[in-house]
């Protein structure tokens, strides 16, 4: 191979996938022979299970980690990492518009190499997989067992024919995409978060069913990459967990990108027609068809509990919520805890890791940490991003807590103005008459970063008065946070009634 061939060779290394597999599920893996009774047996090596295994091993406990598929769970393999990688490419594509608005139009139209987009996504995943590779986990003294686990008794797990006894256990089996209840959809086939990152060609026309975080993220990203995307949402607004202003800004942003938005619309059937997939929809009794090449189903997630034989261990379920846990994340078996998507309402990587940490401390160190004390920020990674932490206004009002939101529009934040990123807002929700921060909602190009400042602020108990005095860089998008705090200080300087 000549030097010039090397320069023009595809950037995707053929051995990338090999490295990835070696890190997350080595092909010729032999499960170890169990070393007596384990201090801590963890079922599931996703974010919750990994945090638990690593922290327990570092404290010197004998740890068994059981994974039926690949190390890393949804987050690494099918969720956060692959989706954010593709969103990064989509943002680059959308920058064309920004380039024109800032006086630097691109000389040529950008073109898409979808194969390269997906190859990059796999490289990113391989890179991230190094953090918790089989090799690293083994280096911590963790015994890794690949295979499906089921309880055989209150202190015993079975992996194939191998019995594994434990003093304490953690269920961290996560969740999987909810199956559809749409006649005909199984027959025509559909993608979910578990399969969309494996496609090799950009769908010319894509329908997204479900307007939750992943549905919105993928609808916007694939639209920006060039698919003709229609998103169908049962509810009258996207992101039902978010406040109306945030959801509406996202809705308009997606429409601006060219996503066809069908809110308040139910998919009642699906059929194949001349090489296409047709979704039959109803909106207020008006029926219409959506013809596409691929369908992405994103209607929520269900906990993975069916194969665990939980009854054998005396572990109860909590309806659709998954494994029933108390505030200490202990199941109905006092020696078994649960963490992450299998038991948490917030099915996010950071919530899984935080709960994994708590469950481990409570299980092994007689900790008394409560999940209700966790303040978990979350973010939907659309453009603009939508992030929230703490109490929602409606939750406070339902609890008769007087609440006031100090709102700063991003279009009034100097850095957002200079960068042309002026869509969105910072709202800090404060207990009225005080400077106590109850929560925050942030819509901004990098709301995922801004909300972390609020997470630090809230966890340290700093109020708006002190926040207003913390010196920030200028100009910065976080200036919106400071402006909100300053508004609160000014507000308190005036008499309450005018």
């Amino acid at each position, binding site marked *: 191979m000549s030097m010039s061939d090397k320069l023009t060779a595809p950037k995707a290394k053929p051995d990338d996938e090999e490295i990835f597999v070696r890190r997350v599920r080595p092909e010729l893996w032999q499960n170890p022979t169990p070393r007596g009774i384990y201090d801590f047996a963890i079922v599931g090596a996703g974010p919750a299970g990994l945090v638990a295994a690593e922290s327990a091993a570092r404290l010197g406990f004998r740890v068994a980690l059981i994974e039926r598929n690949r190390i890393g769970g949804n987050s690494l393999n099918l969720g956060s990492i692959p989706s954010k990688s593709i969103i990064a490419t989509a943002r680059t594509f959308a920058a064309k518009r920004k380039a024109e608005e800032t006086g630097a139009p691109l000389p040529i139209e950008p073109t898409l190499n979808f194969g390269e987009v997906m190859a990059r996504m796999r490289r990113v995943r391989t890179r991230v997989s190094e953090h918790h590779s089989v090799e690293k986990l083994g280096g911590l003294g963790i015994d890794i067992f690949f295979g499906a686990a089921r309880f055989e008794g209150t202190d015993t797990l079975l992996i194939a024919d191998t019995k594994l006894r434990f003093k304490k256990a953690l269920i961290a089996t996560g969740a999987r995409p909810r199956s559809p209840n749409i006649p005909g959809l199984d027959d025509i086939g559909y993608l979910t978060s578990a399969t969309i990152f494996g496609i090799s060609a950009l769908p010319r026309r894509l329908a997204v069913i479900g307007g939750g975080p992943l549905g919105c993220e993928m609808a916007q990203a694939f639209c920006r990459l060039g698919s003709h995307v229609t998103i169908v949402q049962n509810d009258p607004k996207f992101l039902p967990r978010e406040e109306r202003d945030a959801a509406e800004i996202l809705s308009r942003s997606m429409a601006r990108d060219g996503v066809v938005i069908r809110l308040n619309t139910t998919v009642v059937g699906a059929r194949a027609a001349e090489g296409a997939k047709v979704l039959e929809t109803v909106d207020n009794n008006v029926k219409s068809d959506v013809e596409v090449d691929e369908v992405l189903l994103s209607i929520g997630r269900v906990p993975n509990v069916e194969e665990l034989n939980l009854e054998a261990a005396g572990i109860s379920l909590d309806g659709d919520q998954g494994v029933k846990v108390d505030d200490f994340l202990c199941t109905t078996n006092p020696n078994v805890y649960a963490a992450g998507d299998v038991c948490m309402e917030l099915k996010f990587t950071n919530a899984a890791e935080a709960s994994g940490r708590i469950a481990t401390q409570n299980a092994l160190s007689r900790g008394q940490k409560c999940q209700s004390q966790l303040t978990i920020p979350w973010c939907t990674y659309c453009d603009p991003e939508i992030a929230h932490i703490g109490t929602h206004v409606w939750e406070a009002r339902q609890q008769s807590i007087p609440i006031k939101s100090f709102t700063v529009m991003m279009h*009034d934040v100097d850095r957002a103005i200079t960068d042309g990123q002026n869509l969105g807002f910072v709202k800090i929700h404060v207990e009225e008459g005080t400077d106590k921060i109850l929560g925050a909602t942030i819509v901004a190009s990098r709301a995922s970063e801004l909300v972390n400042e609020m997470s630090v602020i809230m966890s340290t108990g700093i109020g708006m008065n002190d926040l207003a005095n913390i010196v920030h860089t200028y100009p910065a998008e976080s200036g919106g946070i400071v402006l909100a705090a300053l508004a609160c200080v000014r507000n308190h300087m005036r008499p309450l009634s005018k």
Partner: protein
Amino acid sequence: MGDLTELSDDALVNRLQRGAFSYFLDYANPENGLVADTSRSGSPCSIAVVGFALSCYTIAVENGWLERAAAANLVLKTLQFFTQSPQDGGPDSTGYKGFYYHFLDMRTGARVWQCELSLIDTALLLAGILTAASYFNGDGDESEIRALADALYRRVDWRWAQNGTETVSQGWKPECGFLHYGWEGYNEATILYVLGLGSPTFPLTQKGYVSWGSTYQWENLSDTDVLYSGPLFTHLFSHAWIDFRGIRDAFMREKHSDYFKNTKAAIALHREYGERNPHDFKDYNRNFWGITAGDGPSDGALQLDGRDRRFFGYMSRGVPYGPDDGTIAPWAMLATLPFGADAALTGTRHLLTTYPQVCPNDRFASGFNPTLTAQPDGWLSEGWYGLDQGLLAMMIENYRTGLIWETFRKCSYVKVGLKRAGFEGEWL
């Protein structure tokens, strides 16, 4: 007719009020009292516009634009139509359970466009009916007006509209039942709740109003405390009938404010937004504002001055979260007269001086967009919308004489409704 801008404030306001009112004479069907939604050819009736018309007939009598007997006769015909029209809830009937379909055929009164049985538009119709009943206190036709109005109000089954829940849905259709979206956040629905709560027959449960209030957002925006709602009309509709000065519900007691002050705060925000003009639209400033629901240039995207601009058709526009495409409602500034005459008049005069075309025949168009320079003078909505004319005529009257406020507060159902919603204060 002369240049509007050369008139004194009083003369200008009078002339624009009469121009607005005359919409109802020009676009009502005198046989049944139905009024066209817009002046455009083939427009159906909007029941909300009828509610505004019924209120405005009283203004016309007071101003000498209509003989009292003629006005009463027009009101009576309207009420007779709504009494006699089919209420079976069929797809082509007029209404159901005392509510009415949003849009009706101008001649037959039959439902058009497969529209919804609309709760808010029925409430606006009823507000007009009760205003007329309160005003026409004489004998003969006027006595019959009161009897019919009472019967129409009493037969509305508000409890049915709650559909077993605490809050009300936005509507119902014979084809699919209740629409599954309700009211989230503060908006124009206060009058809907007040009239629903005041019913002696099938009142809304009191918890519904409290539940709706739990979705309110009390915000500090641009150093102004406000119960937030984006479009300007949401801060005006209920106020066209109800004088909120000196009365407050639990929410406003907690906030040391009232809904009248709140509308003033919202207006201040709209003006501040106009001055900041964050999205760089043409001509926005402190005296060029009025972002609300109304007609727009149509859906589409355009490159203008190197910017990617997106425009909308008929839409509810709002401040500060948007949507905003550079379109203002030319009538909106003047409709805020009772909340601050200086801002309303200064803005209106500035608009009429700069763009006299927004007020053809002394009547404001629904929407105007100077940013859209594809047309030399910007984009202007064709014809007129009945809601705009009715709201403007009523707000001017409230500013000048307080007639509608005085008339409406005499209605006992209104007082009961306000009290059940938790309002207390001077005139209750």
